[in-house]
């Protein structure tokens, strides 16, 4: 029983990291129509920027997280101006943009390798502060922090999309970008804000991933990319809350698959395979995503 509780707790931690990473991806995917294979590198970028200020410069971790978010948001913004916008003006469509994102992923990942090397890095935090919850679950402070921040961020984004004028104009842009500009929306601002939000959340997700993993290298984002995509598709492309459900669901499924009571459970090395298998199976049943509603085109 305590094994199950611990697995559920671990699943929640893994799931909330996937969810926070997925939400940035789903915004860019749903609003701008870019299937961003470089999203994992945005995560890694955030983690390494936080590493630089936290470890190299000695800032406290809280400040490092904020700094990394801002820096990643700026990266996202810079790439919107320097890369995506010119491509969009040239009439590039989904598949072309997807292939560009693969090129971008290669560039970003190896720039990070070039700067920080392949050595595993860790943040300057106390990983040994562990809380015993009800005598059955043990979670570290970093894990608890990560889960809380992730949930708070997702809630905030969800409210922004549903309630604010910015959120509405984002939805309008994703629905019909030409009509959005006829309505008086400055579409260039919308694409910029979407990247600020999407990349900023990716930066946050990267730092949280680094915190929870303990140590990380520049491949960290790419390793998690497929589970993140799985969460996005399960949750329905473009849906913030869907990402939450998809991410947490996947996290739980990955951890629970190792449960002994399930015919011994699968070998933990196959946890990512569980995520891939769930994705493939889910698409067989519902090609539009598990929680995704049929959209009007």
């Amino acid at each position, binding site marked *: 029983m305590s094994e199950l509780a611990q697995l559920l707790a671990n699943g929640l931690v893994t799931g909330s990291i996937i969810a926070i990473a997925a939400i940035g991806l789903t915004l860019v995917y749903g609003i701008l129509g870019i299937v961003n294979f470089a999203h994992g590198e945005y995560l890694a970028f955030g983690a390494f920027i936080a590493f630089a200020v936290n470890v190299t410069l000695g800032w406290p971790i809280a400040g490092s997280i904020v700094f990394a978010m801002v820096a990643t948001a700026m990266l996202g913004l810079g790439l919107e101006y320097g890369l995506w916008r010119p491509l969009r003006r040239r009439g590039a469509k989904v598949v072309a943009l997807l292939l560009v994102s693969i090129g971008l992923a290669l560039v970003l990942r190896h720039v990070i390798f070039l700067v920080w090397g392949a050595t595993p890095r860790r943040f300057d935090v106390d990983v040994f502060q562990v809380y015993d919850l009800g005598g059955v679950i043990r979670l570290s402070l970093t894990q608890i922090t990560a889960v809380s921040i992730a949930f708070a961020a997702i809630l905030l984004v969800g409210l922004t999309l549903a309630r604010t*004028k910015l959120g*509405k104009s984002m*939805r*309008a842009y994703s*629905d*019909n970008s030409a009509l959005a500009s006829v309505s*008086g929306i*400055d579409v260039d601002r919308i694409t910029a804000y979407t990247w600020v939000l999407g990349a900023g959340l990716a930066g946050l997700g990267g730092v949280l991933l680094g915190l929870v993993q303990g140590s990380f290298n520049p491949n960290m984002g790419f390793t998690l990319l497929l589970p993140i995509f799985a969460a996005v598709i399960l949750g329905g492309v473009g849906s913030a809350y869907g990402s939450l459900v998809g991410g947490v669901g996947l996290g739980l499924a990955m951890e629970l698959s190792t449960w002994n009571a399930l015919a011994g459970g699968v070998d933990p090395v196959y946890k990512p395979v569980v995520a891939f298998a769930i994705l493939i199976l889910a698409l067989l049943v519902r090609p539009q995503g598990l929680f995704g509603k049929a959209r*009007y085109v």
Partner: protein
Amino acid sequence: MTAVAPPILETTGLKAGYFEVNILHDVSIAVPRGAIVSVIGPNGAGKSTLLKTIYGFLKPRDGRVVYRPDGAEHDITGLRPNRVTALGLSYIPQLDNVFPNMSIQENLEMGAFLLRTGVDERLERMFELFPLLRERRRAKAGGLSGGQRQMLAMARALMSGPDLLLLDEPSAGLAPNVVDEVFDKIREINAAGISMIIVEQNARRSLAMSDYGYVLDMGRNRFEGPGERLLHDEKVVDLYLGGRGRLAAAAPSGEDYEAAERPPPPAQRRFRL
């Protein structure tokens, strides 16, 4: 409409296109204040491209677009669509003219995106003008039928309180009874003082209710004149309206159009836009 007042919109020598291809070669039109102006012509003549160029979706390679709301003059050549809207124009595209995944009310609110106040009053006026929209205000626009979509598109375009409305084929693909309804609404909107440019396939009906018409062919002006005159110009009929044979066949309905020319009964004018 007085002859001396300068037109509310004027294009001179517009040249525009996509990539290597020029679609507009030299197009000049003028829209008198308060008038309905029809732009007709065969497929590929550049009618829709003209609207897109006026509205800033396409940067013209040459020529000018000048917009003159009350007492002012703006050169809007190549201005981005959101800025064009801010100056008091509005546009209804032919396809994709609603936000399909947003509710009807949200669609209308998007139309008033630039307004800071008075959105609710405008919403109320639109619901009066298009009662069906009130009934289904919470429904997603994607679930509407073609005719209902066109009504929503018109209402959305009016939400910003424009002085000049650009309509791209408002009757395309609609059933005859719905077409009647759409043209009725167009006249009603015009009667409230809004100038209009209409691009239409349904050239006869469009010309019949227009103050002025332009015939475009291969991206150039071909004919122009008062709508009624173009409708009976032998050359125009032969070249662009499918010949006299078809005109004869359609003749009985001509009466009907004339009847519709009369201003709408006062009861329908209770709204101000």
